[in-house]
């Protein structure tokens, strides 16, 4: 009788523990092999045959296709430079320069990777659309209300993420430091 209870107890704990950790690992993030520069993180290995089992499982679950390493690299930002999560009700300034690449795109997604609806049908910018200052840097204002210049609307959503994709770029697996890859700064300002 004690054996039976023990076995049921152990199996129950094993099931909860095993499935629970899998669920957390697949929904809460991809910790392995990330390259973090400022607020931005990329997983260059996910675009190669060397993708790790956790990232494979995440890709299978969400149904996305990672950017191939011969094509480009995608940097995700979930928070500003101070670590505060990006809030769609606040004004966020993305400014500076981007690493060397033939083209880049900056896109705003909700946490599940869907585009966010807004009145002006703008979900992102390409490197060619952006208005730059005379020294080559740019300011992009991400916020709920229309602003002059490069305005990326948030649609007022609570949480979002920015994805900066570099195409035809030397940035990749060998990149480690911000010196090689100067990413734009993200500063969160006033909220509404």
């Amino acid at each position, binding site marked *: 009788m004690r054996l039976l209870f023990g076995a049921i107890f152990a199996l129950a*704990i094993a099931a909860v523990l095993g499935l629970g950790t899998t669920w957390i690992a697949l929904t809460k993030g991809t910790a392995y092999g990330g390259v973090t520069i400022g607020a931005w993180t990329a997983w260059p290995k996910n675009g190669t045959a060397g993708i790790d*089992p956790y990232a494979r499982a995440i890709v299978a*679950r969400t*149904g996305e*296709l990672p950017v191939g390493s*011969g094509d*480009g690299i995608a940097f995700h930002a979930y928070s500003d430079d101070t670590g505060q999560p990006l809030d769609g009700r606040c004004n966020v300034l993305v400014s500076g320069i981007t690493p060397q690449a033939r083209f880049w795109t900056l896109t705003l997604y909700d946490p599940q990777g869907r585009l*966010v609806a807004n009145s002006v049908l703008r979900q992102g910018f390409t490197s060619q659309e952006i208005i730059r200052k005379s020294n080559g840097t740019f300011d992009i204002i991400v916020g709920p209300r229309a602003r002059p210049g490069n305005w990326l609307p948030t649609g007022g959503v609570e949480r979002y993420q920015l*994805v900066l994709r570099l195409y035809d770029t030397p940035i990749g697996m060998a990149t480690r430091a911000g010196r090689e890859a100067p990413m734009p700064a993200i500063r969160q300002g006033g909220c509404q």
Partner: protein
Amino acid sequence: MIRLGLWLLGALLLGGIVHLATVLLLPSMASHDAYARVAAFAPANAVVPVPAPTPDRALMPFMDPAFAVSVCRYDLTRGPLKFSVPISQAYTSVSFYTRSDIAYYAINDRAAGRRVIELDLMTNAQRADLQDTEEMTRADRLIVTSPTNNGLIVIRALTPEPGWLPAARAALTAAQCRPQTLG
């Protein structure tokens, strides 16, 4: 007390095994991965345009809205495939994914170095069967070997400004992905 500790230890070990097994098995059991989503509307060995992502509808998450996208779901069981796409004005890339959505190869217009990206796609076995004729060893002939019989070719053309969309779409419409006629 010791008995309880042993049961707990056993439970921890078993839990670890359950965790690893589910993570490793999930990719082969996923029924709603990118390949399955494409297979729902695209016939094998044909280039099919993918509708642009909108906030309400997108084929898959994290699609870049600045790109026009077409896809070819390939099946190499009957033989190798010939693939070609004319490059658009801005930036064109071709990425290859296995049946389980692993990106194993990608090439862009600059790497191709010509006005057309042209290549042969085959399995390792089909590559081994090829005769090394002069035609086969031509320097500019690109052969891509797929680790799996099935997979996806994703063709993407950048539209740096909205006005470029028709040109990008036109380049993708001219893409071809068809079984090789042996001869």
